[in-house]
Each structure stands twice: as C-alpha cells, then as structure tokens.
C-alpha cells in the first residue's frame, strides 16, 4: 500500500536553531499516528510544515502521490489536509453554527449548492462532536472543552483525508477525554489521523503507531508497546541514568 503522506529530508531552521532536522516520515492511510516528544522537540513545527502554515528550509512533502511542498496552505486544505490549532482559535464572535458553516460551504462547493446541503453537513459535524444543541450560541461563550470540540467539528466539516490534531486533549477534564477518545476512533474510520499529544494514556489507547521526536529528529517509531520499552525514548524523557 502507498503511504498517504511522506516527507523526505524535511528541515526547518529558525535563525540558528534547526527546529526540524532532516525528517523522513511515512504515514499509511487509515492509521492513527501519535507524535510525541519532549517540549521543543519540533512536533508542532513538523505538523505546521505538513499543513503549509510554514515553509520548509529544505526537503519535500508528498501527499497522496503528489508533491505539495510548494503549495500554499489553503490548497492543501482543499486537497484534504485539515489542521486543528493547538491554541484554540475558533471565531469567538460568531455562532457555533457559523463556525462550522465556513468549512462546510467549501466542501459543498463542487457538490450540491443548496442551503440545506450545507445545513446538513454542519449539523452532522456538530452531532458527531456533541455540540448540536449549542449551535446558536456564540462560540466564545462555550466552555474551554467545548471549544476544543468545536475545533474538531470545524476540521470534520472539511471532510479531510488527513486530520491533524495538535494537542487536542490539553485542558480537557477526564470525563471529556473519554468521550474524545471515542470520537477520534470514530473519525479514524474514514480518515487518517495525525495526533500530537502529551497525555500518555490517551496516546497508548488511540495510536496504532507512535513517532517520537527529540531535538528536531525522529528518535524512534513503532507500536505503543515497542515505544514504551524503548531505552532511547526513556532516556529522552527522563534523562540518562548516572
């Protein structure tokens, strides 16, 4: 099977700092892949390169067999790469409905033009995330946890082939995290999920495979069990034994 996403020699410098260093990465369709690593390991920079928010200093990104390295972010979104922000950035002054209508009207563009088609797409995304009964509230009045879910709903409305979630459970209560795990499993039935996450129980439950970043490079990659037992990973997280 051909990978959905591959990067070759992907690098990004910020001044003298090499945030992402010569990364070769491959993601299979249908996978849930978690990206973990200590703070400053380059995880967010890496997914920002994939989504097109920032440009690479070197290297190449291939999505579904096409070189997308030089495409602007909005074109990549239209090709099926959706990105949800680490720092919640919903449109606080607009209603929950309007927040989701914006991505929904984009995916409806080539299909049906009717208003009801957009409405149906919006309500589907809201029902999947459990926000349907809050559709007409201003997004800024939602609780933090619900704003995180709204981010995901906006991503879902894009009908992505690759959904990138940047620390989605940050700031969620334990009860909300359980629902979230169910939601991601549900999403993964028709999309590939790339997940940056600090919460290890969530990573261990969800991920098919885990990629560990350290100092801008891939330190290890494998199944959750293999990563748990990997000595190099333990060293990166806990420091060297004296």
């Amino acid at each position, binding site marked *: 099977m051909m990978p959905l996403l591959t990067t070759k020699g992907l690098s990004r410098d910020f001044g003298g700092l090499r945030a992402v260093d010569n990364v070769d990465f491959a993601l299979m369709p249908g996978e849930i892949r978690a990206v973990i690593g200590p703070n400053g390991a380059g995880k967010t920079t890496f997914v920002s390169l994939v989504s097109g928010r920032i440009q690479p200093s070197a290297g190449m990104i291939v999505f579904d067999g096409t070189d997308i390295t030089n495409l602007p972010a909005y074109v990549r979104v239209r090709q099926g790469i959706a990105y949800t*922000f680490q720092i919640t950035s919903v449109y606080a002054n607009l209603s929950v*409905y309007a927040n989701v209508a914006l991505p929904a009207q984009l995916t409806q563009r080539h299909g049906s033009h009717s208003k009801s088609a957009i409405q149906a797409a919006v309500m589907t995304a809201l029902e999947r995330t459990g926000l349907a009964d809050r559709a007409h509230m201003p997004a800024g009045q939602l609780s933090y946890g619900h704003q995180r879910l709204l981010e995901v709903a906006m991503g879902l409305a894009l009908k992505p082939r690759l959904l990138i979630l940047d620390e989605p459970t940050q700031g969620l209560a334990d009860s909300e995290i359980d629902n979230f795990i169910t939601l991601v499993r549900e999403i993964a039935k028709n999309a590939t999920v790339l997940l940056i996450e600090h919460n290890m129980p969530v990573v261990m439950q969800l991920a098919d495979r885990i990629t560990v970043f350290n100092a801008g490079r891939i330190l290890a990659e494998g199944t959750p069990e293999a990563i748990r037992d990997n000595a190099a990973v333990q060293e990166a997280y806990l420091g060297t034994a004296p």
Partner: protein
Amino acid sequence: MSEASPAKAYALHLGVITLLFVLSFLLPDYYHGLLARIMVLAVFAMGYNMLFGYVGLLSLGHAMFFAAGLYGAGLAVIQLGWSVPAAFAAGLGCGVVVSLVIGLLALRTTGVAFMIVTMMFAQVFYLLILYFATWTGGDQGMVVPQPARVLSLGATSLELTNPTVRYMTALGLFSIVLLVTLAIVRSRYGRVLVAIRENEERTKMLGYDTFSNKLAAVVISGIICAASGAAYALLFGYVGSSFASVQYSILPLLWVLLGGAATTLGPLIGTLFMYYVIDITSGYTSAYLLIVGIALILLVLFFPKGILGSIRQRWLGWLP
C-alpha cells in the same frame, strides 16, 4: 445571526427605501436637496463599510476611489463630451482599475501599514489631480455644464438638474447599492469576509485564499465608492480636487463608525446624523465644529459600536 429571518431583514430595507421615496414628496426644498446629497454620500459610506466593517481593513485612502468615479465621469462629460450613462460607466471603470491596482499593492500590508500605504496612494492621486491642472482644473475644479447633464432615454429626456429627477436618481442608486450590499453580506462570500476579519490565519487553514477574497472586497468597495463619485459629478455638477483630499478619506470612516460598522443601514444613519448635526448647530453658532466634536465624543463613549451597532447588540440581534 444572519441565518435567521431573511424576510425580516429584506422587509426592513424595503421599508427604508419606501420611506425615502415618500419623503421626496413631503420635505421642503432645502431638505429635499440635502437628502439627495446625503443619499449619494451614504453610497460612498456603504462602499467604505464593505471593506472596513466586514473585512476589518481600515483604509485612509478611500477619497481616491470616490475621486476616481468623480473625475472619471466628470472628465468624460467635460473633455470628451460623452453622454451621461457612458460617463457614469467611465467613472465605474476608473474605480475598478484604481482599486485593483491599489489593492494588489496595498494588500501586501496589514494593520497600521495598510492605513499608511492607502493614505500615501491617495495623496499621490490628489497631487496628480493638481499637477494635471490643464485637464482637471487643478484646485479650482470643474463645473459640469447644465446642458450636458441630461439623461436621454429614447424619446424622453430627464434633466438631472431638476430636483425631483435628481432625488429619484440618487434614491435609485442608493437602493441598488443597499440591496446589493445586503445580498453580499448574507452570501457565502460575506461569511468568508467576516471570517477574515475575525481571524485571517484560521480562515486560511479552513481552505480559503484570503488574499484573493480581500482583493475582491477592495474592488467591490472601490466600485461602490466610484459609483458614488460618478453620481455626485453628474447630479451636482461639480468636480473638485477637495473630494480627493485626506478629509474625504476620513469622513466615510466617521460616518460608518457613527452609524455602526458592519451594519447595512449604518452608513446611511451615520451620514444623515453627521449632516443634520452640522446643519442644526451651524444655525446657532459659528463654532459648530466644537459641538460636532462633543457629539462624536459622547457617541463613542455611550455607543462604541455606533448607533445601529449598539441597537443590534442590545435589542435587535437579527439586524444584518
């Protein structure tokens, strides 16, 4: 939200247009003429509101777009002897060209830089008008001769100098622009513009080419402002360089802020309010600008979102 009650919104707008139509038969001569002028300038304010209110781009150079329409139409009539409809079209054409070029250049910047860049371009435009005084009349301006201000429709000809014709033409232009604005802000495109205003970075990551959308908004805004300028030249017969000065870039901003940014009827309310405050206070004292200033300060203190913006926030959430 804008999804709700489209019928209510359209009824309100048609009601305002009907009211303005009826007023034509009720107002005394002086106010009849003043209201015609206010409607034409409210179109200018609506064009400004399109960009400032809905996209959140604060331009200090919109006098340039108004003047493009004003001189485009005025020069076509005076120097080339074109008919009224052709001259109006020439004014619109100038608006398209100027706003497209300025948009392509100025949209490379945002925020304060956008304000400064648009203001500089407008100053260049103003100085060009003064420089080419042979054709433009320089700081004296030009008067569009009365015989040229006749609109021929088949056998009948309408004199734009006639007060009723002038009022109805102004009302016609105002109504078209008002309904077009309402349709745009309620459309999918309008939703994208508001999203760019609220969070441009997020909008890019939802798959929208924000640059092209903003450029289109600058051109739409430019066309509306040029339509106002062209109508002003043809209806009121004066084409002057003062309309290209920085004062006429700031006035639409004031009108829109007063009436309520990002409300469809705010520009009319703001223009109306400002003109009437000046009109009433200047009857009592020569220091009327002092009173206008105090009125503006009070408004900003108690109605920071403008007249209609505050009404929408407190009572009528469905106002478009």
